[in-house]
C-alpha cells in the first residue's frame, strides 16, 4: 500500500528553486532514503511534507488524504512525526518532559480539566508516561530521564529528538540526518533503531542521510536529488551506480 504520495512537488523562494518537480511514493512499512549533495533540497522536501512551507506546485497525499492544504499542526495529528537537522528540542525542559510533549496529539483532557487536575487527568498522564517509558527503554535513555536538555551532549540530544517523534506513536517518521555528527558506534545504533522501528513498530521511515553506509544498511529504496530535482530512484546499489548521481556528488556536469 502506498502511504505517502508526492507528485510534482515544487517550492520556489524568489528565484531559488529549492525543490522543483519532485515525485515519489513511499510504501507502508518501507525505509525510504533521500540523498543528495548539500543544498539539494532534501530538508525542504521534509518542510513541505510538514507543511512548514507552502508548495508552489504539486500535491502531497498521505494515507489516501490530500494534505497539501493542511496546516502544520494537523500533520502531526495524522500520524507524521519528524526530527530536525539542527535539533529542535525544548532546551529548558527535562528529557522526560520533552518526550511527554510528544504525546500532545493523544491528549484526552482540556485545559479546564487540567487546571483542576481531575482524576481523569492523572489517569491519562499515567498512560502517557507508560508510553514514554517504552520509548525511553527502546532508546536506552534511562540515565538521562530527569536531565535538562541544555546540559546534554550532542549525541544524546539527537536520540532524544528521535524519542520525542516516536512518543507521538506515528505511522510515518521523517528523520533529517539522524546520524550527522554522531560517532561510528552511535550511527550503528541508529541503524539498529531504524530497523527495529520498521520491524517491531511497523513504522514507515523516510530518512535524509549523508552517511552512505547507514543508507545502504537500512534503506529499501533511495531517491537521489540535486538542485531541487530528482536524479534517480531505486535500490541503494542502483542509485549509487547511476552516473548522474556520481556526477552530482563530484560536482561535474554530465551530458
Amino acid at each position: 500500500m502506498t502511504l505517502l504520495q508526492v507528485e510534482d512537488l515544487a517550492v520556489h523562494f524568489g528565484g531559488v528553486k529549492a525543490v522543483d518537480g519532485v515525485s515519489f511514493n513511499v510504501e507502508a512499512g518501507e525505509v525510504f532514503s533521500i540523498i543528495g549533495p548539500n543544498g539539494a533540497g532534501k530538508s525542504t522536501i521534509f518542510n513541505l511534507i510538514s507543511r512548514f512551507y507552502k508548495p508552489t506546485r504539486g500535491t502531497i497525499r498521505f494515507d489516501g488524504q490530500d494534505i497539501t492544504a493542511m496546516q502544520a499542526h494537523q500533520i502531526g495529528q495524522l500520524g507524521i512525526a519528524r526530527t530536525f537537522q539542527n535539533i529542535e528540542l525544548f532546551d529548558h525542559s527535562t528529557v522526560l518532559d520533552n518526550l511527554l510533549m510528544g504525546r500532545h496529539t493523544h491528549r484526552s483532557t482540556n485545559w479546564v480539566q487540567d487546571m483542576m487536575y481531575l482524576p481523569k487527568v492523572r489517569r491519562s498522564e499515567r498512560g502517557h508516561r507508560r508510553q514514554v517509558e517504552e520509548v525511553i527503554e527502546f532508546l536506552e535513555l534511562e540515565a538521562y530521564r530527569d536531565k535538562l536538555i541544555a546540559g546534554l551532549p550532542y549525541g544524546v540530544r539527537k536520540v532524544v529528538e528521535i524519542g520525542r517523534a516516536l512518543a507521538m506513536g506515528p505511522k510515518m517518521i521523517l528523520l533529517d540526518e539522524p546520524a550527522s555528527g554522531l560517532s561510528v558506534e552511535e550511527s550503528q545504533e541508529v541503524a539498529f533503531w531504524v530497523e527495529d522501528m520498521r520491524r517491531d513498530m511497523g513504522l514507515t521511515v523516510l530518512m535524509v542521510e549523508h552517511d552512505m553506509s547507514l543508507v545502504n544498511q537500512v534503506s529499501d529504496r533511495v531517491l537521489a536529488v540535486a538542485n531541487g530535482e530528482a536524479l534517480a530512484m531505486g535500490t541503494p546499489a542502483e542509485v549509487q551506480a547511476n552516473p548522474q548521481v556520481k556526477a552530482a556528488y563530484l560536482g561535474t556536469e554530465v551530458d
Partner: protein
Amino acid sequence: MKVIFKTSYDNDIDLHEDWWARGKLIALVAVMAVLPFVVGEYYLAEATNTLIWSLAGMGLMLLVGHTGQASLGHAAFMAIGAYTDAALMNIGVPWMVAFPLAALAAGLFGALVAIPAVRMSGIYLAIATLALFVIVEEMIIIMEPITGGVGGIFAPSITIAGVDFDRYTSLNNFYWLCLGVVVLVTWLYANLLRSPTGRSFLAVRDSEVSARALGINVTRTRSLAFGLSCAMTGLAGALMGHYISFFNYELFSVFISINLLLVVTIGGLGFIQGAFFGAILITAVPQLISILRDGLNSTTGIDLGSVPGLDTLIFSCILIGFIIYEPAGLYGRWLKMRAWVQLFPLARRDMFRRQKTYIKTERMR
C-alpha cells in the same frame, strides 16, 4: 543531599516530591494565615498589597515566563478586572459573582486581542500591548456612565453570607480573602504546569517549530495562555480596586505594567515562586528604604528625606543590579543558596553556569 527514591509514576505527577516539601508549603500558608494576629494593621495592609501584586505577577508570569510572550499592557487587564468587578457590584451583583466575571471579562478580552497579536513577538508584541493599554485607558474615560470616567469609581465593600470583608472595617477578613484567592490561583496554576496544557505552553515558548511538528496549534495555545494570564491579572485588579476602595483610571498607569514586568523578571522567569519573590521585592523594598532613611535621620540627624527622588534612585539601582548580576532572578539566587547549603562543602563555583546551548540559525530547518 537528599535523593528521592521514586516508586511510582505518581511521584513525578504529584505537585510535591515528598511530604517534607508538602509540609513546608503547608507551614508557610499556616504562618500567612495567622499573620493578622501577629502584626499590626499597617503591616497587614502591606502584606495584603503584596498578595495582590503576587497574584498579578502570576498572571504575567504565565505569559512571559511560561509562554515566552511579552506584554506592556497588563495594567489594562488589571483595570478591566477592577472596573468589571466594581461596576457589577454597584448595580447589586454580589461579589461572589462579580469577582469571577471580572476574571472572565479580562480573560476573554485578552484571548481576543491575542489572536491578531499572535504573529507578533518580542518588541513588536510589547508595543502592540502598550497601544492596547492606551486604548483601554481612553475607553475607561469615555464610558463614564459605567466607569465614572475621570472622576473615578467606588468599589463597594464585600460581604459574603453576611460576613463583612471590608478593607477598612475588617482588614483581617479582607487579608484572608486575598490569601484564599492567591492560594487557589496558585494551585490552579501549578496544576496547569504539570498538565498537557502547561507543557504545550512551554513547547510554544522554547521552539515554535517543534511545537507545530508535534501537532500543537500555536495560535490557539498562545491565545489560551494570553487569556488565562489576563484572567489572573484581572482578579488581581479587582482585589486592588477593593484595596484602594475609590479609584480612577490613574490607578492603573503604565508604571503598573512596568512594575509587573519587574516582578516577573527580578523574581525569576519561569517559576511560580518568582512571582512571589518579585512581588515581595517590589512592595517591600520601598518601605524598607524609607524605614532605613528614617532610622538614619533619628540616629545621626542626616535627613535624606529632603533629597528628592533618592528612594527611587536606590530602588532603581537595586533593580538594575539584579538584572545584571542575577539574570535567574531572586528565585534563582534562592535555589543556588539552597544547593550550596545542601551540598556543603562540595559546592563548586561554576556549578550553575549556563551550559552552552548549541547555536541555532534563524532559517527553518
